[in-house]
């Protein structure tokens, strides 16, 4: 199974395919190019012209290296961190030299001083960025990131636990078989809640868990709880961090169903949007009613877990209308490889 966090393996090269990494590199390199222009020219026009000229060289090198490093990161990674890093720096210097060669072909004048400046700039900035990612990796080191993930692991509300136990007790005398099934559901649910949840799970696995959870809620709430599913069957093997959907559904029950006497319906969806999976949970919204403080906690917990797993490539949105509350999560679509 793939690891949950894309760059927490010990001292690994940054994942050059990751959007967050790409963005950080683009911003840093362009920032340095601008700073270099500002230092060299006193007037704004001079800075603008110099920066534009600089970009003509910097941008192709930058984009080309990102395009090449993305597929090359796995072979480079196999060489060990030190060798890999040195190779990346040399590779960047080589690309800068190539850029100089191309510019010579255009302008016709071969300025070797410029060649030295290009390669040194490329080497320095590559080393700097690698250093930054190295430190960032350490800051979010496996131990730390794991500790945070463990701490953030979705927790079931005690209220739910004790009410469910009470519901099972109520079944024991009259309907022992239903009580057995309910206890089995609880066992499965708590097994997942207490498990080591750093591994990704499949959408099917998460949905099975949600069904068991909802069976327990149904036991307590009966007719008041209605559920509508809209799951794209092709997404069954899509990979997700575990316990992303369940806390959203728990929230929907707690805020949308429990505060009302009338029955209400929860809509749960999963669909594909290009290269992303969108999960959605909609519940009836009762404005100015019971308990609203717990909601933000659960959502910020999920948001932080998404950030730890996917950096900027995942998002969580909420939408409140007059009559309903909608939460949407988008994560990159990846499928479990067949074993």
């Amino acid at each position, binding site marked *: 199974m793939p690891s949950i966090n894309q760059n927490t393996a010990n001292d690994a090269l940054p994942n050059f395919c990751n959007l967050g990494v790409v963005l950080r590199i683009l911003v840093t390199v362009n920032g340095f190019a601008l700073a270099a222009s500002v230092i060299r020219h006193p007037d704004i026009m001079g800075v603008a012209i110099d920066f534009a000229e600089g970009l003509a060289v910097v941008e192709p090198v930058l984009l080309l290296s990102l395009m090449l490093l993305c597929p090359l990161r796995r072979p480079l990674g196999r060489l060990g961190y030190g060798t890999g890093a040195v190779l990346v720096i040399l590779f960047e210097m080589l690309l800068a030299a190539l850029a100089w060669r191309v510019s010579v072909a255009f302008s016709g004048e071969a300025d070797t001083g410029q060649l030295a400046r290009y390669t040194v700039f490329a080497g320095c900035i590559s080393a700097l960025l690698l250093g930054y990612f190295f430190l960032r990796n350490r800051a979010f080191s496996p131990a730390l990131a794991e500790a945070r993930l463990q701490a953030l692991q979705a927790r079931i*509300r*005690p*209220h739910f*636990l*004790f*009410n469910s*136990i*009470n*519901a099972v*007790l*109520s*079944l024991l*005398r*009259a309907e022992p078989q239903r009580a057995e099934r309910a206890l089995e559901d609880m066992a499965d649910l708590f097994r997942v809640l207490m498990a080591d949840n750093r591994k990704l799970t499949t959408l099917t696995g998460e949905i099975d868990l949600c069904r068991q959870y909802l069976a327990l809620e149904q*036991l*307590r*709430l*009966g007719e008041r709880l209605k559920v509508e599913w809209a799951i794209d069957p092709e997404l069954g093997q899509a990979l997700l961090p575990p316990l992303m959907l369940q806390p959203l559904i728990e929230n929907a029950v707690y805020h949308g169903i*429990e*505060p*009302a*006497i009338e029955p209400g319906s929860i809509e749960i969806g999963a669909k594909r949007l290009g290269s992303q999976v969108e999960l959605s949970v909609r519940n009836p919204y009762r404005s*100015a*009613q*019971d308990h609203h403080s717990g909601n933000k906690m659960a959502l910020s917990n999920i948001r932080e877990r998404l950030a730890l797993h996917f950096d900027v490539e995942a998002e969580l949105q909420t939408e409140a209308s007059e009559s309903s509350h909608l939460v949407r999560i988008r994560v990159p679509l990846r499928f479990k490889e067949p074993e």
Partner: protein
Amino acid sequence: MNQSAVRIMIVDDEAPARRRMRDLLSDCAGAVPHQVVLEAANGHEAIRGLAETDANLLLMDIHMPEMSGIEVARHLAGLEHPPAVIFTTAFDEYAVKAFEVNAIDYLLKPVRAERLLAALQKAKAMPPLSREALERVDNEARRFLSITERGRILLVAVADIIFLRAELKYVTIRTKEREYLIEESLTRLESEFAAQMVRIHRNALVARRAVKGFERSADEEGDSHWEVLLNGIDERLPVSRRQWPTVKGLAKT
């Protein structure tokens, strides 16, 4: 409480919890003879059912839709002979502490038969719950105001109230349909419903959402003052000069 017959009402929004309570009560029937006269699924059913069944002990869940068990008890406290109440809750650390401080009995779910038996035996000797003690446990704004008439409790949803006006001993509640009188202090109502209502005059609070606009008007002595126009009713209320600065922002543009 009547020594001979304990007439019990079970109030819980979860059917399995009611069934469990019934099973446990039947286990206690030998030691404390009683009769379960009603099972209510929410506060409304409990309040309606009370007049019909004459229950004298309520076993009531705290966490219920629309009206918490504590709010139900606050309304019941206005009765001449309020029933005894034992609260049940699955998990509510904060409330549990407050109950102990205020000597209000409660049962933690899942309830044990022995614990229920002890509570039933104690309930006979307990004084009825006072409004003050209940408010100390839960001072959240009520969803309803209650009017007690000849042993019956009438609920008016706070969401339906257009204004509250103090008149001598009473406060008039005005809804779109009619008026009611309650014996409460306007100052306490103002602090309880600060989120929903605003004071426009020494003697009146209006619901923020009911404010349609304001109009200048002259009184008999020729002094002009502002009046508030309200959604749903034609009646207008004067805004005092003192409250005008805080009230004028409510006018919808």
